[in-house]
C-alpha cells in the first residue's frame, strides 16, 4: 500500500514538474521544474529496479545538463523578464499536434505489454549493462560516442572566435 502510494507520489511529482516546465512563464522556473521532473524520472527507474540507470539519470541530467542549462540561463542578461513563447506556430496547429501526439502515446500506453518487476532486493545491473555495451551493442555504443564527440568539437568550433573569423 505504502509502496503504491510512493509510486503515485513520485509519478504525480514528475507529471506536475513536467507541466511546470511547459507552462511556466519564467524560464528559470522552468529549469528548476525540469530538475523535479528529472529526479522523478530517476525515482521511477528506481521502482523498476534499474538502480544504475536511476543514478546515471541524476548524475548526467541533474548534475551535468541541468546545471549547464542554469549556467547558460543565468549568464544571459535579464532573462527572467523575457516573454518566452513561440509565436511562429499558431494555436490551431499546436492543438492538432498535441491531439495527435496524445492519441499516439495513449495507444502506445494501452497496447504495450507491460512487465511487472519482481519485488525485493534489486539484482546488480551494472555487470549486465557493461557486458551488453562491450558485447552485442558495441557498435551502437561507439557510434553514440562518436556523435557526442562530433557535437563537442562542433561546439568548440562555433564558440571560438579566432577559428570563426
Amino acid at each position, binding site marked *: *500500500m*505504502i*509502496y503504491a502510494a510512493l509510486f503515485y507520489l513520485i509519478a504525480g511529482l514528475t507529471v506536475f514538474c513536467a507541466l511546470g516546465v511547459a507552462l511556466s512563464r519564467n524560464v*528559470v*522556473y522552468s529549469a*528548476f521544474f525540469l*530538475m523535479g521532473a528529472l529526479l522523478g524520472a530517476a525515482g521511477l527507474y528506481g521502482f523498476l529496479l534499474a*538502480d*544504475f540507470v536511476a*543514478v*546515471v539519470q*541524476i*548524475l548526467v541530467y*541533474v*548534475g*551535468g545538463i*541541468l*546545471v*549547464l542549462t*542554469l*549556467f547558460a540561463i*543565468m*549568464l544571459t542578461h535579464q532573462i*527572467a523578464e523575457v516573454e518566452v513563447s513561440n509565436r511562429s506556430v499558431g494555436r490551431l496547429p499546436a492543438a492538432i499536434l498535441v491531439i495527435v501526439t496524445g492519441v499516439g502515446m495513449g495507444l502506445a500506453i494501452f497496447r504495450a505489454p507491460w512487465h511487472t518487476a519482481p519485488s525485493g*532486493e*534489486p539484482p*546488480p*545491473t*551494472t555487470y549486465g549493462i557493461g557486458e551488453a555495451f562491450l558485447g552485442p551493442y558495441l557498435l551502437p555504443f561507439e557510434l553514440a560516442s562518436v556523435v557526442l564527440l562530433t557535437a563537442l568539437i562542433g561546439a568548440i568550433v562555433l564558440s571560438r572566435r579566432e577559428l570563426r573569423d
Partner: protein
Amino acid sequence: MQQLADSLLQTGFLQGVPTEAGYALVIAFFAFVLLNFIMLIAGVTSWLERRVWARIQSRVGPNRVGPQGVIQWLADGIKNIMKEDIVPAEADRPLFKAAPYLAMMGFFATFAVIPFGDGLVVADLNVGVLYITAVTALVVVGILMAGWASNNKWALLGGIRSAAQIISYEIPAGIAVITVVLFTGSLSMQTIIRAQGWAPWDWFLFANPFLCIASFIFFVSALAEGNRTPFDLPEAESELVAGAFTEYSGLRNLLFFLVEWGNLYVIGALYTTMFLGGWQIPPITEQPVIQGALQFATFFAKSYFLVFVAMWIRGTLPRVRVDQLMTLCWKYLVPITFANLIGAMIWFVLFPNGLAIMRFAMFALGVAVTIYFFSRILFHLRRARPRLRLNPIS
C-alpha cells in the same frame, strides 16, 4: 538494514505491524538518527575547524562556551535559530526559501550509503559510489538557486562560479573513482571496503602507484567540489562579500554552512572507503557489538583525520584565482587522471591479483615520506624556537 527490519518485524517490538508500514517506520527511524548524527558531526566540525584554524594562525579561537569551547556550535546554532529570517524585497521568494533545503537534501542523501561498519550502513546500494557522486549534484543546484534567487550580483557570480567549478572537478573525481572501481569490479561501498584489508599495506592507497595518484587527484577534486579552500571561490569573502550566501541570514545561512561542514565529512568518508580500507579492523574479537563499535571507531577516526587534513590545508594555502582553478582542472588534472586510468588498466592486465612487493614498497615509501615530513617540521620548529624569545630584559 532489511534484515534488521525483518527481524524487528518478526520478533522485536514491531511485531504485528504490517510489513510495509514496518519498513517505513524503520526507514524513518534511521533517517532521524542519521540526521541527528549529521547535525552533531557538522556542529562539532565547525567548532574544531575554528580551533584548528586559530591554532595554525597563532590565535586562540572559541574557547569560552564549555571546556575548550566544545559546545560553541550549540550556542551558535541557538543564536542563528533566534535570528530574524530576512528575505530581500527584490529576491525571488519561493526559490530563495527553497534553496537551502535543496542543498541540505543533496548532502543528507549521501549518508544513506556511507558504511560506518560491517552491518552499519543504511542501504548498501549496488551503485553506492556513483550514487554519492550523483546526489551531491543537488547541492550545486541549491547553491545556483540561492545565487540566482538572491537577485544580487555577488550572489549570482558566486553561484555561477560554484556551478563551473563543480562541473569541472566532477570529471577528475569521477575518473579517480573509476580507477578504484576497476580494481574491485563493483560500485558498492561495502564491496570496495571488503576488497581491502585492515593492514595499511592492504589499502588501495598503497596497492599500486596508479591508485596512489588517483587518491591524490580524488582528494583535490573532492575539496574543489566541496567548495573548500583553496577552492572556495563561490564564497570568496575578499571578492564577493559572501558569494552565493550573501543575502541569507539566520537559519537558512546556517543550513548552507552545515552542508559545507558536513560535506567535509562526506569527502573524508568517501576517501576512507575507497583508499584507506574503510572500517576494516584486525581480527581480535568475535563479539559482534565490540566488533561493530571498533569498526565504527576505525572508520570515524580515519575519516575525521581527513577532515583535519582539509582544515589544515584551509589554514595553510591561499585561495586560487578562477583562471588558475580552471587551468588546474582542465590542463593538469583531467589529462593526468586519464593517463593514470590507462596505466591502471595496463597494471590490472599485467597483475590481476596485485603485486605484494609493490604493496610493501609503496607502504614503505609512504612511511618514509611521513617520517621525512615530520622530521622537517621538527627541524623547523627547533630552528624557529630561539628567535621567538621576545623578552629582552631576562
